[in-house]
């Protein structure tokens, strides 16, 4: 088995793998069918009813590809395409620079407050719509705090938020937790023996990290990085709020939502987004192919935590503090905004007040309740589906199993408003016995959230399963355990960290999702926090209360995240003690 644990060196999945993965059991087949039906019903059919327009000819409605030719012939779209590719790639680079030190320091060293840092490092993902961008502009914009001070003191400004670079900056801050959370989970899962073996052979320092630790954590890094790439490629909110319109996702959104113009190009771009997302996932899967990242020993509780020398400690704290300060700036800004009386063209607000919290206190209760219910249900659906899909793809030989993964991933590329319209179109005609349309039930919002956030949970579960050696399952089965029992007693417990990471990501991002929600919310009583926020952020007087609601949302999700980190930490300790 020793060779199965070697990382970085490619070897074909031969021998034990092939022997293990014989044809699928009826149970696996049923599971695959159930997932296919779910995805077809809540993703493929609703979206298909909307974007088929991309393939129809104007006037006749017959099938055609001429719209795609138009896409290739239009300078604006080609420029948008390359801008999107560039911004996504650079965002991955910048996000990695933020995430690597945080993940490495907190998992590898005996570092006080590691758990707190993990939680804080997760917060940027919870950027409430609208207010997050306003706060960011108030701090980093052309006339934000930083630039006003720089201009006063030194007479220059730094264009943080201008053009494509602004988008890269904000996206990296916003999405780097994808890398942080997946990479940390992966680092925790590395077998300590690998590292010790390398050290015994005389390897240490950066070489140890570069040759042993990082390669072993690769599934987590790739999972995070590919998510960042695809998410940035498909994100429309940030570019639009920075008034960057020549990127693909904003172009799709602007065209899909323009009133009274029946333009197929919005849907054509949606198709391009979907294809690109699947392509990116395929490339990342290719990059991992032929390598085996699984480690057998699972009791170690991850990498050995080392004491730092004093100067190392100072450097580590300084690095962590600086990164956190930068990535949490939007939330600091949000907090200031929620207490501010007036904040306009000045480094800090004119004065502070509690009035905004007073205004939202009464009505926020129902929003908080709805958000908790919707986001946790969506998160649960996501980890169940994510685990199942990861298992089917990695552990069975079902034909077309990859397509389950790709279909679920494609959800990332579908603009929320397209999914919302698709749901209305598909489910509004379906009536309940009392005559109300199916689409008016709040459960439809949950399903939309679950579909939109499924790729996050899926990547986390996928990475977790990749790190588990199949030989453990073989051992269990050799000892007479059934497949179901093996999954329940061996696979799931070992995946727990990754599953939880997936749940937290799905939950947290579902809690602040707006675009599909805005289509599907039927009454204030069913509305989640993000909708309440949207309602406030449409007027000048609503900025403060909107920020207050945003802070409540962030706190809420942060508490849940912190709790789940506690659970991870505890289970790791328990495992360590049992070792």
């Amino acid at each position, binding site marked *: 088995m020793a060779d199965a644990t070697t990382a970085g060196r490619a070897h074909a999945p031969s021998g034990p793998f092939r022997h293990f993965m014989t044809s699928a059991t009826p149970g696996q087949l049923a599971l695959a069918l159930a997932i296919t039906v779910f995805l077809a019903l809540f993703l493929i059919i609703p979206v298909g009813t909307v974007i088929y327009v991309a393939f129809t000819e104007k006037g006749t409605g017959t099938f055609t590809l001429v719209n795609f030719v*138009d896409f290739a012939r239009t300078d604006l779209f080609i420029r948008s395409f390359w801008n999107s590719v560039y911004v996504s790639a650079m965002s991955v680079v910048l996000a990695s620079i933020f995430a690597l030190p945080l993940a490495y320091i907190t998992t590898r060293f005996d570092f006080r407050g590691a758990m707190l840092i993990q939680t804080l490092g997760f917060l940027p993902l919870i950027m409430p719509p609208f207010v997050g961008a306003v706060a960011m502009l108030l701090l980093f914009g052309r*006339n934000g705090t930083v630039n006003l001070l720089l201009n006063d003191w030194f007479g220059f400004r730094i264009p943080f938020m201008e053009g494509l670079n602004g988008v890269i900056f904000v996206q990296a801050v916003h999405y780097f937790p994808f890398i942080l959370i997946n990479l940390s989970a992966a680092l925790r899962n590395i077998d300590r023996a690998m590292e010790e073996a390398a050290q015994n052979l005389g390897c240490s320092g950066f070489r140890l990290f570069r040759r042993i630790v990082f390669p072993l954590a690769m599934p987590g890094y790739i999972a995070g990085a590919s998510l960042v790439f695809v998410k940035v490629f498909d994100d429309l909110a940030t570019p639009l709020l920075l008034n960057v319109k020549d990127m693909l996702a904003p172009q799709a959104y602007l065209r899909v939502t323009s009133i009274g113009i029946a333009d197929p190009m919005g849907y054509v771009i949606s198709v391009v987004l979907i294809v690109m997302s699947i392509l990116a996932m395929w490339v990342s899967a290719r990059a991992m192919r032929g390598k085996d990242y699984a480690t057998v020993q699972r009791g170690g509780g991850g990498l050995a935590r080392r004491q730092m020398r004093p100067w190392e400690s100072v450097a580590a704290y300084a690095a962590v503090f600086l990164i956190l300060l930068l990535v949490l700036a939007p939330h600091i800004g949000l907090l200031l905004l929620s207490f501010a009386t007036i904040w306009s*063209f000045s480094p800090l607000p004119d004065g502070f007040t509690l009035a905004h919290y007073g205004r939202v206190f009464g009505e926020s209760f129902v929003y908080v309740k709805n958000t908790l219910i919707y986001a946790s249900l969506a998160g649960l659906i996501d980890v169940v589906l994510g685990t199942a899909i990861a298992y089917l793809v990695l552990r069975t030989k079902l034909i077309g199993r990859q397509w389950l993964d790709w279909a679920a991933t494609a959800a990332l590329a579908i603009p929320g408003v397209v999914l919302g319209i698709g749901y*209305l179109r598909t489910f509004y005609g379906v009536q309940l016995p009392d005559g109300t349309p199916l689409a008016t039930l709040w459960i439809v919002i949950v399903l939309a959230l679950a579909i939109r956030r499924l790729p996050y949970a899926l990547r986390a579960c996928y990475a977790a399963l990749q790190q588990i050696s199949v030989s453990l399952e073989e051992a269990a089965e050799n000892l007479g355990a059934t497949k179901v029992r093996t999954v329940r007693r061996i696979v799931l417990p070992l995946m727990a960290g990754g599953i939880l990471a997936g749940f937290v990501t799905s939950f947290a991002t579902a809690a602040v999702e707006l675009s599909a929600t805005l289509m599907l919310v039927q009454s204030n009583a069913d509305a989640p926090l993000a909708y309440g926020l949207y309602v406030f952020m449409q007027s000048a007087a609503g900025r403060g209360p909107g920020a207050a609601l945003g802070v409540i949302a962030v706190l809420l999700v942060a508490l849940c995240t912190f709790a789940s980190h506690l659970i991870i930490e505890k289970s790791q300790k328990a495992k360590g003690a049992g070792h």
Partner: protein
Amino acid sequence: MPRHYAAAAALIGAALFTGVAFAQTGKVTVVTSFSKDVTDPFKQAFEKAHPGVTLDVQNRNTNAGVKYLEETKANNQVDLFWASAPDAFEVLKGKGLLEAYKPKAEGIPDKIGSYPINDPAGFYSGFAASGYGIMWNERYAKANELPEPKDWQDLAKAVYFDHVAMAAPSRSGTTHLTIETILQGEGWEKGWRTLKEVSGNFRQITERSFGVPEAVNSGQVGFGIVIDFFAFSSQASGFPVKFVYPTVTTIVPANVAVVANAPNKAGAQAFVDYLISPAGQEVLLEPSIRRLPVNPAVYDKAPADYPNPFKDPSLGARVKFDVEVSEKRSNVVDVLYDQTVTFQLDALKAATKAIHDAEAALAKKDNAEARALVSEARDLVAAMPITAEQAASPEITGAFTGGKEKGARQAELEQQWSAFAKERYAQAQAKAEEVLKRAR
């Protein structure tokens, strides 16, 4: 027998009661793009005037609201659509999603400014009006030593370069009307020239109407072309902003309509009647709403300096507005603006900056030849790919309606128009830079 009678009487009574009380009870569902600051006072006042009725407000932006009604028409649950943009109502009307209703209110004139208040066919009714103007952040203007603008043309001056913002007309129905008014007032060619000269100074073109006041309030942009109530409500919230109506401005109405097959039609009509009744019109005067009532009598109750379009001719009455012309080319104007300005903003700004610099150099040392070059550059910037006649022609308008007829595809036209603009902006920039080089 008596029992039967009693039961029958009770039944009839109940039927009568529900019939009579139908307008007075139950839930009235309204889809609106208005913010809480606007809807809350109306909700309270309406529910007070009609005890037993609840107004269920669903906030959606105008685009989402239109799509929502479209997708749910088979089993409609919405009673009212309530928003600013007249074009959204036109689209809904065109798709047969509205039901005609003539409000009971009296004393409402036909026009406010030069724009008709109500849909002539009666499918939607104006309940308030707003004027367009210029809003600016005083701290920003002071820090950058910028003068106060008075008119649209002022914003085209070199000092305002990179300091102005506006919402894209394709995204904001009210901005669209302002643009259309400039085009009708100054004529197609001169109108576009003005628009492009002002647009060349833009810092950003936002995708939401509210994006402009937000940027001005927070000081990210100095000057915004906005609808008046955004500025007034910002002032009411304490932001250091000022507002001015230009000497010629447009007045645009905000509307309400009963949705076809409304589940509570009587309740919906009651709300429309309430909005236009004197009591409802007075709610508009509240500082957090501050819109212009369509009932001239209500202005007697307004504060002294409240703008009154029925008395002040500079508010809308001076401009001519032909609804038919506007409707015919509405999509074309939006797409033209997007393709030649919004998506070419960097190129337009580069050309504008070069022209400003060249003119500054000329001001120091004049030279007839160079002046001619600058004028050529300005002409290049102002050039449009199609004429007013073409913009209203069915060959071109047909590309945007998704109609059944075959013809040019939208994407083809867009590519032609944007290439046309891009090429000329580059030429204009080269000419202006040439002048600058010679001046050195």
